[in-house]
């Protein structure tokens, strides 16, 4: 998949995450949306909250707006939106929906066991 970095909004949480990422220990998450819909805004804020609560210092969120980069949809087999993809650690996991059910999100990210 060709993935032009410059066209993807990347949000790294803080310096510690950057370090964790470089060591390959962090969660690399990608949120696919199509424009600024209520569902996508809600999904992003839910995701940020969950990451802050459970993954502090070891996550990175990329946001892919498919209206701008439709060619990226096929690569990750995106169908439903919003879709959260856990790209790292492997295996790849997918969570669809506005991420309003925190428990399900944690299950999806394999984070439900206490840290």
């Amino acid at each position, binding site marked *: 998949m060709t993935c032009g970095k410059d066209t993807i909004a990347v949000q790294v949480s803080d310096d510690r995450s950057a370090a964790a990422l470089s060591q390959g220990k962090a969660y690399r998450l990608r949120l696919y949306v199509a424009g600024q819909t209520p569902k996508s805004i809600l*999904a992003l804020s839910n995701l940020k909250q969950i990451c802050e609560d459970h993954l502090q210092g070891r996550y990175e969120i990329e946001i892919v707006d498919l209206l701008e980069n439709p060619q990226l949809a096929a690569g990750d*087999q995106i169908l439903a*939106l919003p879709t959260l993809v856990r790209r790292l650690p492997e295996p790849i996991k*997918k*969570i*669809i929906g*506005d991420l*309003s059910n925190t428990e399900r999100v944690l299950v999806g990210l394999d984070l439900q066991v206490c840290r």
Partner: protein
Amino acid sequence: MEARGVVDRSPSCELPKAPTGIRGLDEITFGGLPKGRPTLVCGGPGSGKTLLALTFLVNGILDSNEPGVLMTFEENADEITSDVSSLGFDLPALIATKKLVVDYVRVERSEIEETGEYDLEGLFVRLDYAIRSVGATRVVLDTIESLFAGLKDDAVLRAELRRLFRWLKDKGVTTVITGERGEGLLTKQGLEEYVSDAVILLDHRVHDQVSTRRLRVVKYRGSYHGTNEYPFLIDAAGISVLPVSSMALAHDAPLDRISTGIARLDAMFGDKGFYRGSTVLVSGTAGTGKTSLAAHFIDASCRRGERCLCFLFEESPQQLLRNMRSIGIDLEPWVEAGLLRFHADRPSRYGLETHLATMHELVANFKPTVTVLDPVTNLMTVGTFADVQAMLTRMIDHLKTENITALLTSLTPGQTELERTETSISSLMDTWIVLANDDLGARHRRGLYVLKSRGMPHSNELREFTLTDEGLHMAANGGQPETSELARHDMWEGHNRRAGL
């Protein structure tokens, strides 16, 4: 009735159509699928849905220069490519030349966690991107119902599919959506509710261990269409639907005549033989010389340089060639010259529809002016009486439309009445020649008479003939070789009685 009368009159100025390029299907839909609208193609597993959809797509690219998008939910691009490569579809080349996009959508329920609200906008984005990247005007979704297995929220899916079909319609792309046949429904998820423009149902059924495929246009909004079930065939050349016991009786009636291959038989038809494009039935009990008579006809046709297609349902070509050589007719040179082609099939090898389809296919490819079916009664073993009659009607209809002269032989069993088939198919026949055996004293005699021949004066005499090593030798007018008036009368009477006349 009234509404039908209206469309009937002007089938050509209906809504625009996108030809499928599938022989037969474009005929029964009067031009193809509704252009710019979705069509649902449904059927059970292995009924040929995907093939029909892909043929529509590829023919669109090759024949109408309409680029296409294939969104597949079941097989990936490689699998699809290899599936259809045997049909001569070169998908990679079409993809490379930017005429086709194949997008494989894979949904695995176990890999997806659902939390909160979502929609299928991602699918729209992908489809839109694919359509724009090649300027597609045809789209195939195969089989979108797989999504129901991949996602849990049926309500969302249904709402989104409804939106998708609406969206496709607004985009003006001609879409084929395939769907698996469901219990009591055309498709498992009732997609027919959403796709209301045209619905085609494919069916694959086995009757008496013989499988036949059938196609039916269940619905075609705003267009007249054939409503019957039409047999269709999938073979090395792809998919073809059997056109129709054509919609009207509108064959030409040519006036030129062709020889029967036997001068004295020609003489019985006013010295000219059969009408070209007519259908001739040659019936008789076993060993009366039906095939020999047919061989003369074949020989004469090839001598004129015409192509002859011969369907054998009893003998192999080699057998027939050998047997005919024994009466001095050598057909082998015509085979070598490419003027004569045999097609031998056991009738029970497949269903009537497939026989019919095969015949159509061969006629279309070989383009004969003369065909022989020997013996047509053997087809009786394959289906019911009504089925065989329907099949023959279609076949004869087709041959007439193509102005092909057909000679059918028919075996009359024993000394009983003429078979029901014979009398019933006889109405389709323009000319009926009856062959008969008779034992008079120590001598076995053969005779023939013309029971009917539409549209021409013909001899009513019963004529005796012999099979010599120089072919079928008919007695000269007046009853040579020596047949007593009485004996001739007996044969004549006997056969009229058998024919129920």
